[in-house]
């Protein structure tokens, strides 16, 4: 049996105290080795599936950059941590990385995680890029100068969808929503309503009728009671914000009731190909928002190369948009560092603000006022198909992001039109 004597206790205590007080200064300096970038994203739990796209996208960007000589001549290394889509786990990972001198980070697809990381990044002098969090609060009351979003803002994405509906379906004016009962679901629905109320009168010259949305419980395995509520409504168009596995379960169970056949158009907030891949031939035709659709970006050299590298790395034919967001984040950091010839947080932030950089979806600009990218919003119409894949894209639309995004309002609450 090992005995711990008093002398050993004193020795280890002194070492621990030294590590806690004196060493941080030493370990915080990155030195001249590889440039380390933190990747904090879900690699387990319910959002692991999306986190795997973020990880692949980031790794592809790093491999491409390293092959081309790195950043300022330094190779780039990812420090990968699992946030479990849980703010507490994300904070622990971020503090550990910041404490070891990693000041530049990407990842975070859960809104709760990203909102929790904002203040920590600000306090500890770090930078964080979200690769898909949908919260509008990071542009408003929870704005942090250290948080950046290289992808669609929720107002640009969702209002673009409302605008598209007014353009394509001017006669479909009675709308409802299938809305998960959480902050993201309710906010996304409210922004969609705002868009309907702006674009139907201005484009379709009609006033939309907005029915009460159907609130869906989150993360359950039975949606029949909510589906029954939806059956009682007489809506012609439906906006779906349920997500991933929840959406698949909901569509599967709605099929038995014939609910989706009642709607003349279905507009989905953000599922990309997630639901179509899961449902295959059972998939009800619908519009959905995309971070990135490779087919539509053919001819963009960055996209072509990204797609080839992604296919070689994963054997998956079609990346989902979260991979592109991670790729865009790494390239944004690269450009900002090279412009300022510095990896220091203040210099990187100063150079990111207002910066335009090339991505797999074309050029994007980070708005200086609230660190939000201005980019075109991409949407596709997906239909079921009798193929092995089980679905096909039959329409693709890009909406100019500048025409739908709200003006910057950091620090202020979002205000919306209501029916």
């Amino acid at each position, binding site marked *: 049996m090992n005995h711990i004597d008093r002398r050993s206790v004193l020795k280890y205590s002194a070492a621990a105290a030294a590590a806690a007080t004196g060493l941080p200064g030493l370990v915080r300096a990155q030195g001249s080795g590889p440039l380390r970038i933190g990747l904090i994203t879900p690699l387990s*739990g*319910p959002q*692991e*599936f999306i986190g*795997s796209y973020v990880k692949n996208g980031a790794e592809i960007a790093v491999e491409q950059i390293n092959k081309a000589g790195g950043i300022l001549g330094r190779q780039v290394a990812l420090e990968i941590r699992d946030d479990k889509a849980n703010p507490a786990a994300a904070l622990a990972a971020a503090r550990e990385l910041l404490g070891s001198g990693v000041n530049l980070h990407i990842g975070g697809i859960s809104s709760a995680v990203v909102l929790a990381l904002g203040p920590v990044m600000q306090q500890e002098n770090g930078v964080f890029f979200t690769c898909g969090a949908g919260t509008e609060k990071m542009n408003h009351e929870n704005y942090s100068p250290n948080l950046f979003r290289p992808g669609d803002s929720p107002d640009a994405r969702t209002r673009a969808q409302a605008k598209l509906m007014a353009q394509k379906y001017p006669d479909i004016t009675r709308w409802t929503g299938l809305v998960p*009962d959480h902050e993201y679901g309710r906010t996304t629905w409210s922004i969609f309503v705002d868009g309907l109320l702006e674009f139907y009168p201005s484009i379709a010259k009609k006033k939309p009728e907005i029915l009460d949305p*159907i*609130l*869906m*419980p989150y*993360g*359950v*395995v*039975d949606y*029949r*009671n*909510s589906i*029954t*509520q939806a*059956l*009682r409504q007489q809506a012609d168009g439906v906006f779906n914000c349920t997500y*991933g*596995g*929840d959406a*698949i*379960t909901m569509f*599967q*169970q709605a*099929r*038995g*009731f*014939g609910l989706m056949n009642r709607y003349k158009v279905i507009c989905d907030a953000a599922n990309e190909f*997630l*639901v179509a*891949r*899961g*449902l*295959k*031939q*059972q998939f009800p035709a619908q519009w959905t928002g995309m971070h990135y659709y490779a087919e539509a970006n053919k001819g963009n050299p960055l996209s072509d190369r990204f797609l080839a590298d992604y296919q070689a790395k994963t054997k998956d034919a079609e990346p989902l948009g979260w991979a592109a967001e991670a790729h865009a984040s790494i390239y944004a950091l690269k450009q900002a560092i090279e412009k300022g010839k510095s990896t220091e947080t203040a210099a990187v932030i100063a150079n990111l603000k207002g910066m335009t950089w090339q991505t797999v979806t074309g050029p994007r600009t980070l708005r200086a006022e609230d660190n939000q990218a201005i980019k075109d919003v991409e949407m596709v119409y997906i239909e079921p198909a009798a193929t092995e894949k089980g679905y096909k894209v039959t329409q693709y639309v890009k909406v100019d992001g500048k025409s739908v995004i709200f003006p910057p309002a950091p620090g202020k609450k979002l205000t919306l039109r209501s029916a």
Partner: protein
Amino acid sequence: MQAADIVTLLVNSLTWAMATFLVAAGLTLVFGTLHILNFSHGGFFMIGAYLAYSLANAIGGAPSIAMYLFGSLVAGVLVAVLGLVVDRLVLRRLAGVDDAYVLIATYALLLVCEGSTKLLWGLNYHSVQPPASLDGAWLLGNAVLPKLSLFIIGAGVIVFVALEYCLNQTRPGRLVKAIAADPWMARLLGVNVRLVYTATVALGFALAGLAGGLLVSNQTLSPTLASAFVIQAFGVIIIGGMGSIAGAFFGSILLGIIDAFGQWVLPGLPGLPFFLAMTLILLLRPQGLMGRRNH
């Protein structure tokens, strides 16, 4: 509220109840006999669902009802075999140990199930089309009765009746009940208690696999399916009374009805009536509706 609404809500309630009961039946059977609360039960339910998915995928398109049932039975048998392995390697070692160790060991098993599912079937979401004869709905006046819902209700009732009959009317079933009540006395009377334990574990796991197959077209398949179902299965066996098959059956019906009608009355607060009812029942009857106090 019109009659059609009441009928639709009742069918919804019973669908939820029987889906939950199908998962909970094996869990409560093993607990009632071995007094082991198997936290990994949802994991084996999930594996059953994935096995049925693989079989349906090998056939392609929507399976026939016969193939759907055959796939469910195959899933049940394969998961029962897994149960025998788990019994040999893990459950036997947990006999008589503190509940905390049982919880940790079976939770670790759940993680193994999730990890194995990721390795074998990946992270993608999957789904299975219901058989053509279970697609669509019957109309009863204005009430919409999805055929898949009625199938799930029927499957739950058949499993309940079969279990109750086997446990109460057959010699092996009575042996299981006798051993559950007093294994020491059963051993004195010459009963091979170990064999009955093993058979009970195999049956409990077979029920998990069968439930996975029967419910495969009811919801999405993903490696998180286990956790989603096991929470509500635990809810109904606690409400019904730990170890009671009838308790799980009637407990799930009660909670299903409260949830469906509660959501009708409070559409802005989905889930709230369910948890309020659980709290109230446990306050009034901590041992569950049909449970015994020593559980």
